[in-house]
């Protein structure tokens, strides 16, 4: 009598799985498009450098040994500045998450500091710490500090209270509760905050190197920009992007290691 048909599938989706290669495919397609456009001519050489030219500039940079001369100080600055800012941020964030007084005192302060474009403070840091490395460390540290605090105390707030109750009910010491329950429970939130903080760190790195740095990716980009040398400008920008992707991949690896207990 009535017609037979299968019930329509409505589930699925909303569960991101890792698809290898798609990300690379997007990059390849985009670069391929630019290459094609600049060769055929519908993208003028003045608006966009040809990717292959950018690549050969990069090779030149590499073979001349200048790449390391620029990259090494940049990585050092990022490493020192970001470690300072992130470790201070996690420490303060945990304290804010745990103690009402510290929270009441510091949350308004952090909210006041967060929206300040840290780049605007660079001259101030130069006055405080001098034109050399210290002011660059300070800028990066300060810039990574505020977002880390915010994401850390949010993560601590989100730790399941019933687990903390459980710890108390078994008479665990305060220190045990913090290190064995609160910190691991907050780790997912802290790590996803780390991605954002590190990206901000790269942005500030370039800003810091635009003032009074002889070497560094930022200095390289600034020099290229002032000469309107688009190939070198894009080489520098591409190096920054690769740094960003690498850092994100490293954080991803850490997440995989530390958060393998998640579903």
């Amino acid at each position, binding site marked *: 009598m009535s017609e037979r048909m299968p019930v329509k599938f409505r589930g699925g989706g909303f569960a991101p799985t890792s698809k290898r290669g798609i990300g690379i495919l997007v990059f390849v397609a985009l670069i391929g498009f630019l290459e094609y456009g600049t060769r055929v001519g519908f993208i003028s050489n003045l608006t966009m450098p040809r990717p292959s030219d950018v690549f050969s500039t990069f090779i030149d940079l590499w073979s001349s040994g200048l790449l390391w001369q620029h990259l090494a100080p940049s990585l050092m600055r990022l490493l020192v500045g970001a470690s300072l800012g992130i470790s201070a941020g996690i420490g303060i964030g945990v304290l804010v998450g745990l103690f009402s007084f510290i929270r009441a005192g510091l949350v308004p302060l952090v909210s006041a500091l967060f929206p300040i474009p840290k780049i605007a403070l660079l001259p101030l840091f130069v006055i405080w710490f001098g034109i050399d490395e210290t002011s660059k460390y300070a800028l990066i540290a300060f810039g990574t500090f505020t977002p880390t605090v915010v994401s850390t105390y949010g993560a601590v707030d989100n730790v399941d209270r019933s687990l903390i109750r*459980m710890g108390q009910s078994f008479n*665990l010491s305060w220190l*045990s509760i913090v290190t*064995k329950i609160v910190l691991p429970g907050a780790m997912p939130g802290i790590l996803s905050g780390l991605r954002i903080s590190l990206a901000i760190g790269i942005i500030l790195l370039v800003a810091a190197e635009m003032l009074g740095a002889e070497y560094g990716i930022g200095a390289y980009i600034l020099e290229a920009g002032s000469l309107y040398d688009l190939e070198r400008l894009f080489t520098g920008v591409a190096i920054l992007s690769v740094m960003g992707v690498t850092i994100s991949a490293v954080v991803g690896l850490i997440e995989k290691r530390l*958060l393998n*207990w*998640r579903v």
Partner: protein
Amino acid sequence: MDLFLENISHSYGETEVLQDISLSIPSGKILCIVGPSGCGKSTLLRLIGGLERPTSGQVIQLGSPPKDTINPLTYVFQDFALLPWRSVEKNISLVLEDHDIDRASRAEIITGVLARTKLTDFRKALPRQLSGGMKQRVALARALAVNPAVMLMDEPLSALDSQTRELLMDDLVSLWTRQPFTAVYVTHNLNEAVRLGHSIVVLSRRPGCIREIITIDKPLEEREVWDGELDQKQKYLWNLMREEAMAADQELLNV
């Protein structure tokens, strides 16, 4: 070690939750607490274990806990409260780490409680790999590991399906018969109450006060799933509870 509740009353702000509860918790017995939803059973349990302070009255501990007790008042929670990032054995070891117990005896305790709760094969498993019933057995193993003087159990089987619940009730009975422990067992399931309780405290609707205490003399191991005597008790309890529930409804109508 016996516990006594002396005139315990408790309020959250304006709402009075518990009213003048006096009760003795004898050692070596399971005391069940039943009562309508929201009458303050969980609150009472938190007061007994010192996780919260009563507004008035006090909980008295008579005598000291046995020497080998690591954590005298130990909870088993409805939602298991296992750390998802720790394996089964690490979850148990968590509650032993803060005490002065060397590595070898810690491992020995863990092996022992895992055997008692039939979890030996799951030592290294993470909580997410376990079914609900197994998670609650881990929580039970963790509670047993600290050798409690009194176990405070808040609806430990409520998150489980009825077959698993039957199996775990059997497990609890055999754990108790092999080595009697003291427990305060909160439940809203009257069948659990008559199967596990040596005595059953019926609380009234909020503000909870003791409506009646019934005792069941039949030994735990002789209680069957279908048992005429227990059915009688259960029916009696149900009538008491139904009156409370109906009275609560009536109050709503009169507002």
